[in-house]
């Protein structure tokens, strides 16, 4: 027997080997990149010198041509579709809260910019209220968003006066209550969202907490500490303890006697009276400097590095310090909101001169219907705008355009000739410092708007909460969201022409 396999024919077809070439190799920018730079680079200085000499003339010629050039004047490129209109994207409300005639006391956007939260409470109740209130969140990026049904509703036993989302953890939100307590909720926990609370201790505020804020911790990068401000004059910084409690880490107390005197305030009575603090804003360039607005109508420049102890009477576990360094000239009524300009060096990159001046600007608004633009360096305001005869509850700088800010107005006697119709006003200092560039009517009829916040991640969105219990999310037109050429220069000019 024989075994025979068929003839297997083989043929050499082409064999292909890869030719490869190094295209660009990109590594993650790590600290090593910086260290490489700092080490001694092997440089042939003579060839470097000859290169620079050869190239110097050409570059200088171009630089000179550039600053004299009028070639590009008025030439602007539109990369995105220009959206001319301002729309109200969403009208969010929680019907159960509206039935109880609760008002929106505060709105906040979370770290990713997709969730907006609002707190319900009452801003006009004078006495100690034990009314229940709510904190509601809506995720605007979800499909099937029902504006009448919040994604999360938290029942709170006391009235929530202010809210703030954590700047980097998208599910943590802190709230200050009418009772003086602070609570931090974790919205990712469905059973019991309460993460930490202060409870009522000797350390907590004795008056309603009007503003909470997260203070970026210089030591721990992502970590942030909670700061609260109240009309009892105390500014407290809290630390999270393991058992779900918030313990006092450090504190400041603003006492009338310790405020640096300015001439206009001579007529106010002094003493150890606590000064009611209603609002606070941290400077974006110096983590130690912050500005507070007080019930007395003036703003104060304060520093966390202050050492002097405060003459505060009530006992607390930690000694409180007096932070005030400079008092600015007052409004004719309590200051309800202050906001420091967010434009600082990293945003601008190169233009250090304008950055230095812009860093020093902050806005304050109060019940006299005026907005003051101050430089942190001097007591007199740079600009004083009379927006309306109504109270102004909130003022915020735009996060993208250095010359734009928004103000929310409400109650108060309105003089027909003088009032700007509308409740949320957007000012563009480039176009006109006297009239608002845009006025948005939040609702039909007289409806005070108590709070507003720009969405930092999606700068076209502005959320505003009002007295009828609705939160409106406005989409702004592109002129409010795109920085024009040379806008920082205008801001710098504005800051310097009025100081001179």
């Amino acid at each position: 027997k024989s075994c025979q396999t068929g003839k297997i024919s083989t043929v050499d077809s082409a064999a292909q080997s890869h030719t490869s070439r190094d295209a660009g190799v990109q590594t993650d920018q790590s600290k090593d990149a910086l260290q490489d730079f700092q080490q001694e680079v092997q440089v042939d200085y003579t060839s470097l010198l000859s290169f620079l000499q050869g190239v110097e003339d050409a570059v200088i010629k171009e630089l000179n041509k550039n600053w004299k050039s009028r070639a590009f004047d008025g030439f602007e490129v539109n990369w995105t579709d220009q959206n001319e209109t301002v729309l109200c994207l969403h009208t969010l409300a929680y019907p159960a809260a509206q039935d109880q005639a609760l008002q929106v006391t505060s709105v906040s956007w979370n770290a990713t910019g997709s969730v907006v939260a609002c707190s319900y409470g009452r801003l006009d109740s004078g006495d100690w209220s034990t009314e229940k209130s709510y904190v509601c969140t809506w995720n605007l990026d979800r499909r099937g968003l029902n504006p009448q049904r919040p994604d999360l509703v938290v029942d709170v036993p006391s009235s929530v006066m202010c809210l703030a989302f954590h700047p980097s953890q998208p599910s943590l939100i802190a709230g200050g209550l009418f009772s003086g307590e602070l609570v931090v909720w974790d919205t990712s926990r469905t059973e019991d969202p309460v993460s930490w609370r202060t409870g009522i201790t000797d350390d907590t505020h004795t008056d309603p907490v009007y503003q909470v804020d997260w203070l970026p911790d210089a030591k721990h990068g992502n970590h942030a500490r909670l700061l609260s401000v109240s009309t009892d004059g105390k500014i407290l910084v809290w630390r999270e303890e393991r058992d779900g409690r918030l313990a006092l880490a450090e504190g400041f107390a603003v006492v009338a006697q310790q405020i640096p005197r300015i001439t206009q305030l001579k007529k106010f009575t002094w003493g150890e009276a606590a000064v009611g603090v209603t609002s606070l804003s941290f400077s974006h360039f110096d983590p130690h400097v912050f500005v507070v607005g007080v019930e007395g109508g003036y703003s104060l420049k304060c520093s966390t590095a202050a050492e002097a102890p405060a003459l505060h009477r009530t006992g607390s576990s930690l000694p409180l310090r007096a932070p005030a360094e400079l008092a600015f000239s007052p409004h004719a009524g309590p200051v309800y909101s202050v906001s420091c300009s967010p434009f600082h060096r990293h945003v601008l990159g190169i233009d250090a001169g304008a950055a230095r001046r812009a860093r020093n600007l902050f806005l304050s608004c109060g019940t006299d219907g005026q907005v003051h633009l101050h430089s942190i360096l001097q007591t007199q305001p740079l600009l004083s705008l009379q927006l309306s005869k109504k109270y102004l509850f909130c003022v915020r700088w735009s996060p993208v355009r250095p010359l734009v800010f928004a103000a929310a107005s409400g109650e108060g006697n309105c003089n027909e000739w003088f009032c700007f119709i509308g409740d949320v006003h957007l000012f563009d200092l480039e176009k006109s410092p006297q009239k608002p560039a845009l006025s948005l009517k939040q609702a039909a009829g007289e409806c005070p708007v108590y709070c507003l916040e720009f969405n930092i991640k999606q700068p076209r969105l502005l959320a505003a909460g009002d007295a009828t219990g609705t939160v409106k999310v406005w989409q702004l037109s592109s002129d409010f969201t795109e920085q024009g050429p040379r806008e920082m220069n205008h801001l710098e000019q504005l800051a310097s022409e009025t100081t001179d």
Partner: protein
Amino acid sequence: GIPIRTTLDNSTTVQYAGLLHQLTMKARSTVRDIDPQNDLTFLRIRSKKHEIMVAPDKNYLLIVIQN
């Protein structure tokens, strides 16, 4: 590219150096693809906020940023 001298802060410098080196190489190959006898002498990028000028060389790159 590795930065040798700079008037800006470190992280911005490294960012500019890396990005502009790549862009300069691409611009140079564009010029030479169109006309092999030609070569890139100067690159200017005008943006809303400033103008970036790059003077290239065989071994070095000079980057100037003007408002």
